[in-house]
């Protein structure tokens, strides 16, 4: 994203109201996918481009069709990159407050991270609830990181070439 998401919030709100997607999960999905897509494509393009052509030439000479090359060679080799992009997107979306408060603010759809804010009013605060909420909100991210951690550490490309 090269422009601040804040700038596009008003037109987005108008558009989503028109198609009745405010306060729906579908609306949230569409928004988050749209907002993160540019970044994701940009990073993934670089990752795929770095994979050496010879591997695919060899696979073609080995008689593999494009789908097999994609599934058996390109995808496994891009896995560390895919994992890194996934975790970045996950963090960004999970931590997002803006879309949660603006577009998903009904009690049915509000994300947990946005809801923590509700424990804190203008003249009152409930620190126990806020901290408990934050802890609960942080747990899934911690688990996701533990699950994907090995992909950051393992350089899978090592050993392919001299």
């Amino acid at each position: 994203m090269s422009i601040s998401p804040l700038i596009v919030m008003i037109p987005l709100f108008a558009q989503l109201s028109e198609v009745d997607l405010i306060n729906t999960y579908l609306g949230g999905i569409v928004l988050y996918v749209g907002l993160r897509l540019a970044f994701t494509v940009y990073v993934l393009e670089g990752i795929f481009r770095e994979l050496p052509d010879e591997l695919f030439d060899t696979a073609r000479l080995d008689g593999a069709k494009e789908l097999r090359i994609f599934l058996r060679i390109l995808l496994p080799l891009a896995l560390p990159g895919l994992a890194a992009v996934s975790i970045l997107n996950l963090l960004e979306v999970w931590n997002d407050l803006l879309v949660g408060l603006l577009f998903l603010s009904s009690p049915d759809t509000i994300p947990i991270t946005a809801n923590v804010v509700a424990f804190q009013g203008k003249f009152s605060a409930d620190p126990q609830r806020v901290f408990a909420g934050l802890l609960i909100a942080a747990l899934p991210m911690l688990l996701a990181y533990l699950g994907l951690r090995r992909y950051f550490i393992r350089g899978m490309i090592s050993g392919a070439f001299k």
Partner: protein
Amino acid sequence: MDEHVDSGSGIELDQISKVFANGTRAVDRVSLEVQAGEFMVLVGPSGCGKSTLLRLIAGRDVTYVEPANRDIAMVFQNYALYPHMSIRQNLAFGLKARRMPAADIARRVEETGGVLGLSDLLDRKPGQLSGGQRQRVAMGRAMVREPAVYLMDEPLSNLDAKLRVTMRAELTRLHERLGVTTVYVTHDQVEAMTLGQRVAVLRDGSPQQCDTPRRCSTGPATCSWRLSSGRRA
């Protein structure tokens, strides 16, 4: 461009040219005939178009026959092993892609591994092997398919001098045993003279001479080979 590879036979290049998008003429009307079972070496200085020519034979730029249907195996300079697969899977990949029964695949992989002395390494990943071992895996991946033609693009240039000599002898022995048509690209004249049954000298994309190593060294058709490499044959 006109080119065809018949099963178990030689290669005939008829007036092949390759011009890159920026106008560079990398290969200029090359006509070359490689007999069935022959070991042909393409030799010439860097940038003379020998690798490009090899890739043309491999089918990268020619659309008449799909690379998969050419029955050709290629060994790259940097080996291009699949890094996420074990050696066994590396060797089996081409056979699986051709839907060979699993039992036959296992048998062929074991056989090839035995011939190349890789039997103990089959369950390792390429990253756990030395340069010489990787080179043998790259050879094995080509051999296991039993193709009609081998193409080799400077397969020994990443090895140390001693290993290179050993592998050279190995290659000659292998070719004598299998008798498969081989096109071998190198810039190393010693390699060309010792390996090739015939040697084609390339310069600036066009062939200068194509003859037996002995005749190439005693009476060059042109002296450009010596001039271009600065070494005497």
